[in-house]
């Protein structure tokens, strides 16, 4: 799934609650911030991976042409200063910001952008999102022209995604492997060192093109083996920020230190294998959806820190003006039993359920679903696997139901693209209606058109249930008292370049 996203709601951490609060004073320059995570980054080359730590750390080292806006409905310029369409939307011309320098002092040119976008397009991870781009060419040193096979209204948003980061052409004269060890970008921080599985140390980029940024002198990302160790480090004062702490652990911190960001960029959903067994019958899928008490899940598993799902596109990815039909997701055990009885004479089905057993929340959810669905006649056989094996089982279609947590998809079209490209995330679905919705989204000239396309997609999902959305979990951010007045974006997290710490 895509890991870069567009902001929608901005909240503040370091001050408690979910409303912005600032002192009005510019943060003091200097200092070092330590951020904790339980996962290590996979790669510095942005188009190689889609994991969240890589995405977040890369966003401190590299820039993109555009960045997600804070209102969820647009993008803001970054390395690009202008974007113009011609030829009926099939040609996009991007003008580059002047005076931008890489960490090694070299100037940013169109050659770097052409290299980076071509590499992104060729990447196994997300290259398919650029399928409509036929040619990427430089037009002088300060402009790039993209020629498309068809108009793509979300092109700017895709260019704001982290894998579309701009690297120096030909890796600045290095091989990809050498670059991985000594990455160079135009971002607010430069890489000092990386110890796999331990930490990544960054230092201020004094040549950064945004005036007054970054505020910090140094930024360190520490990797922890488990949530408990990370929480203990925060209590001991050796950590300043925990990014997206599991909600169960966040509850143990005082409210003043935790911010719950909403709307959520995540949707927790069940992948449904429609290629075999009783799940090929839509009534069984609908029975499962109606047999799940989503509110009980949110209250029980998330301590109320989440929202019951009413569609597959998570709230933070929805264009303004979308409408929702919650009926397909309503908890109605009597209806679930009737639907199941209509589909299966015995009124009972037995299904396997694949989940990541190394994830405590996923394990708890699996048990809760098993108990909930048993009441309506669905016998769920839990198949807990380690993370890699669970992903492998779902991707290869060796499951009946599987748990997924697509993260930070912006815009909504990436959910649709992912759904279509993956046949409903491993479920083997032929999604003609989803394809039509995606085409309509790409061709839409405005937000209203995009909203209509998303509505059409959700109608298809709601009536067919190729995936079963459960809930949208809030994002928990924990900060130490040294960190003040930090704006947190519910999708992209916090902007480290503007954070200051008390020294």
């Amino acid at each position, binding site marked *: *799934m*895509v890991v870069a996203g567009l902001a929608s709601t901005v909240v503040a951490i370091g001050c408690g609650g979910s409303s912005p609060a600032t002192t009005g004073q510019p943060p003091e320059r200097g200092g070092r911030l330590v951020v904790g995570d339980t996962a*290590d*980054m*996979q*790669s*510095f080359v942005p188009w*190689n*991976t*889609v*994991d969240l730590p890589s995405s977040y750390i890369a966003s401190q080292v590299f820039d993109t042409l555009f960045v997600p806006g804070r209102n969820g409905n647009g993008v803001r310029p970054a390395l690009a200063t202008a974007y113009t369409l011609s030829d009926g939307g099939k040609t996009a011309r991007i003008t580059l910001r002047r005076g931008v320098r890489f960490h090694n002092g070299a100037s940013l040119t169109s050659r770097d952008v052409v290299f980076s976008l071509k590499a992104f397009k060729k990447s*196994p*991870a997300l*290259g*398919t999102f650029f399928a409509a781009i036929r040619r990427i060419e430089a037009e002088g040193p300060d402009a790039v022209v993209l020629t498309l096979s068809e108009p793509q209204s979300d092109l700017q948003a895709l260019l704001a995604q982290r894998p579309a980061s701009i690297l120096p052409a030909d890796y600045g004269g290095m091989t*990809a*492997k050498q670059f*991985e*060890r000594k990455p160079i970008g135009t971002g607010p921080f430069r890489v000092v060192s*990386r*110890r*796999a*599985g*331990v930490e990544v140390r960054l230092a201020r980029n004094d040549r950064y093109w945004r005036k007054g940024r970054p505020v910090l002198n140094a930024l360190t990302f*520490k990797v*922890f*083996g*488990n949530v*408990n*160790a990370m929480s*203990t*480090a925060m*209590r*001991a004062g*050796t950590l300043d920020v925990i990014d997206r702490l599991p909600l169960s652990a966040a509850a143990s911190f005082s409210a003043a230190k935790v911010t719950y960001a909403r709307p959520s960029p995540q949707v927790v959903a069940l*992948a449904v294998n429609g290629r075999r067994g009783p799940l090929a019958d839509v009534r069984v899928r609908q029975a499962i959806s109606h047999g799940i008490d989503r509110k009980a899940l949110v209250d029980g598993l998330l301590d109320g820190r989440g929202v019951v799902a009413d569609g597959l596109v998570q709230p933070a990815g929805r264009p303004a003006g979308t409408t929702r039909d919650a009926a397909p997701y309503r908890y109605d055990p009597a209806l679930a039993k009737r639907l199941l009885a209509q589909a299966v004479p015995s009124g009972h089905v037995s299904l396997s359920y694949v989940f990541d057993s*190394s994830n405590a929340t996923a394990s708890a959810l699996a048990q809760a679903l098993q108990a909930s669905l048993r009441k309506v006649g669905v016998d769920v056989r839990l198949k807990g*696997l*380690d*993370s*890699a*094996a*669970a*992903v*492998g*089982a*779902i*991707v290869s279609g060796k499951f009946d139901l599987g748990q*997924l947590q*697509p993260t930070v998809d912006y815009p909504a079209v990436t959910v649709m693209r*992912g759904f279509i*490209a*993956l046949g409903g*995330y*491993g479920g083997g679905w032929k999604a003609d209606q989803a394809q039509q919705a995606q085409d309509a989204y790409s061709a839409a000239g405005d937000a209203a058109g995009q909203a209509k396309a998303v509505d059409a997609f959700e109608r298809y999902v709601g009536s067919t249930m190729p995936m079963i959305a459960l809930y949208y979990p809030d994002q928990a951010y924990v900060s130490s008292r040294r960190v003040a007045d930090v704006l947190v974006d519910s999708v992209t997290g916090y902007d480290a370049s503007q954070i200051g710490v008390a020294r």
Partner: protein
Amino acid sequence: MRSAVTRRLAGGLALVLAVMTLVFIILQAAPGDPASVILGPGATAESVAKLDAQLGLDRSVLAQYADYVGGVVTGDLGDSYYGSQSVTGLIGDRLPATAWLLAAGLLISVPLSCAIALLSAHRRGTLLDRGLRAVTVVALAIPSFWLGLLLVLTIALPTEALPVGGFGDTAPEHFKSIILPGVTLAASLVPVQVRVLRAGLVQALKSEYVAAARSRGVGSVRVLVDHALPNASLPLLTIVAVQLSYALFAGVVIEQTFQLPGIGSALIEAVGERDYPVVTGITLALAVVIVLISTVSELLQMALDPRMRLA
């Protein structure tokens, strides 16, 4: 002696080769492949196939194995799939923390075990002896993660005298960071060491040479320390070697509790990510270390006990 060393090393080499092959086979058979992990559940089959080709995983298992063995022979353990770090570099990066942990565990446990065992043997059959033995049994049942957390909550957090985790950057920081993990590891080593050493001491105290020493008027403490302890220590040497080998893997719990960037944690992470070169590389390195520990232990025993040389 030299032929014995040669025999041990040849056996060790065969063992290392067997471990390497077994790990390679197990990884191939394990569900979940690296490309799927790297690309996530959002990857298409084409993307996975493309990345498999880039990583060389589309080749036959035999070709991959031959390539790997060829690399090992030339000292190249390959690169991690994540971040392109060389496996040898990663091992070199993560081994020091584990070495510090093991050293701290031994430096704390062996003297403590000797003291407890000597006291227990000296006062064998008394209430003190029974109490000490009971304590070692209880200590044996304490899980390392629980004790580690207890030490963090009762010592590190309230006093702030010792770090709650991490390894630091300098030798003094390493030293401070390793005290609590060392105590935790020692707590799991001491019970077995005490029981083995006490049993050896009690046996030695019944021997004729001890009776002879006593008849010469040697004091009971000197009999215990100078006569019984050297002979009773030989089984302890064997046990410590076994414990060290075991702690290389079992220490991962302590590493994770105290955030020590050790080799065990690296192995667990690599298994989770299906980072084949790192898993095989670390396993190979650990197998070599275990063979070396075992060989050194046996050589020491030969040096200390003439009967071993004759055997």
